[in-house]
């Protein structure tokens, strides 16, 4: 159970972007969060993934409230989330080849032995050939890079997935392929999903339940760019 209770967060204490939002994702459930751009949904997604410390409110993961954030959060808690960001270009280290990019979480958690098997399996799954795996991020398209980022998010088998406008920059067929990969992973692992976006058609078809930002009790009266 992932519970966000009364979250207030932002980048300046005087003008929080997110005010008093509460949201719950049950295990295995897919929740879509719809909202206009700039309303703070990306910030909420970062708070949920323990990447941004909220000014107020608590994040409760399986009954245990999170006390620390970013690199101070316990590693088990951090790696419980697979996060996909809106811009694959910015969320991939430009120096790493795609294969190293996908394997990086395994290296960081000291599970090098699993790398060849796991990377091969995931590359197959997201549709990246061996030739693409040897390239660097600037040599592939946005869609191919987002596929690699999805593989990286899945490589540690996280029980929670957080997709922050994962498909906003991609064409329809790549979107469909990526959503299919996420769904097949969720079927076999029972992972919960929080998908953030403003594409209502996609989110209503993809998720078990969609909530609109305005319904969450948040005030969107001062939209700020994130």
């Amino acid at each position, binding site marked *: 159970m992932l519970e966000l209770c009364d979250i207030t967060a932002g980048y300046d204490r005087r003008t929080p972007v997110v005010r008093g939002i509460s949201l719950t994702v049950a295990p295995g459930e897919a929740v879509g969060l719809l909202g206009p751009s700039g309303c703070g949904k990306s910030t909420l997604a970062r708070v949920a993934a323990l990447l941004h410390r909220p000014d107020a409110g608590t994040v409760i993961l399986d009954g245990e409230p999170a006390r620390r954030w970013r690199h101070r959060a316990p590693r088990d808690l951090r790696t419980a989330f697979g996060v996909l960001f809106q811009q694959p270009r910015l969320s991939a280290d430009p120096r790493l080849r795609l294969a190293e990019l996908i394997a990086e979480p395994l290296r960081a958690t000291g599970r090098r032995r699993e790398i060849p098997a796991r990377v091969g399996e995931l590359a197959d799954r997201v549709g990246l050939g061996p030739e693409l795996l040897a390239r660097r991020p600037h040599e592939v398209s946005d869609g191919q890079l987002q596929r690699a980022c999805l593989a*990286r998010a899945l490589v540690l088998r996280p029980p929670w997935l957080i997709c922050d406008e994962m498909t906003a920059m991609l064409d329809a067929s790549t979107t469909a392929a990526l959503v299919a990969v996420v769904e097949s992973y969720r079927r076999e692992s029972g992972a919960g999903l929080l998908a953030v976006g403003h594409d209502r058609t996609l989110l209503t078809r993809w998720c078990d339940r969609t909530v609109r930002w305005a319904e969450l009790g948040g005030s969107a009266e001062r939209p700020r760019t994130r």
Partner: protein
Amino acid sequence: MADAGNSLETYGGWRDAPGAGRAAGSRTGRALRVWVCAGLLVLIVLAVLVVPPLLPLDQQAVDLAAKLQPPSPAHPFGTDEVGRDLLLRCVHGLRVSLLVGVVAALAATVLGTAVGALAGALGGWSDRAVMRLVDLFSSVPHLLLGIFIVAMFRPGVWPVIVSVALTHWLSTARIVRAELLSLRSRPYLDAALTGGASRRRVAVRHLLPAVLPQAGLAAVLMVPHAIWHESALSFLGLGLPAHEASLGSMANAARGSLLAGAWWPTLFPGLFIIVPTLAVAGLAGAWRERTNPRRRSELML
């Protein structure tokens, strides 16, 4: 008349060159510059490494009978006011200058990278405090601060290195901090954190490789600066002990004989300062144009 037309034509051709031939000309020009600089540097390094062990220099040997001889086959650069061979002394002096330049530039870069990384990593209040400290240091003129540091020790190579290193780390600290601040908010660091990377792993795997090219370039650009600084200190009599060969103290000692018409004791040490620094700066400039073509600023000397 024909002469005038000819010169006009060449003048016109010369004026066209920067505009028309820029695309093709600048590339070959740059390649030529890189090769000339690299060749000069190889020559200098070879001379500095090979000559001193083969031809050791007796710092005290004086031959007053042969004083102030103009360049000749026996003494290609001539002799100084106490009859010592200038070529040999120049090479030995260059060796000291290069040693000081490279070691001081390395030390300054390490110090600057450490301070800049500290400021960039901590952020907020401590970042501001550290950077104000850097501003405070850079508000004092380099040479004045260097003289102050050198004056605290006995004359020798190491005080000079310490002095140059302690006055030249500021720009590297600023560069590294700025680079880190621009990297800090990139989502790929967030991705590394959710991938279970520790703070140290983020720094070593993702931040350091991004900062190193900038810091390395700053280090290379620092070498000529440090050479000049050493020469300046020696020229003022504050660097190496007076009897040891140093380009700065040689230029200083030759000032008296310059008025008597002996140009060679000033010219050759001066050339030995200028040519290596230009060669290093030329290579660093080409490197910078490669890594950061948008910033075609002049070479920092």
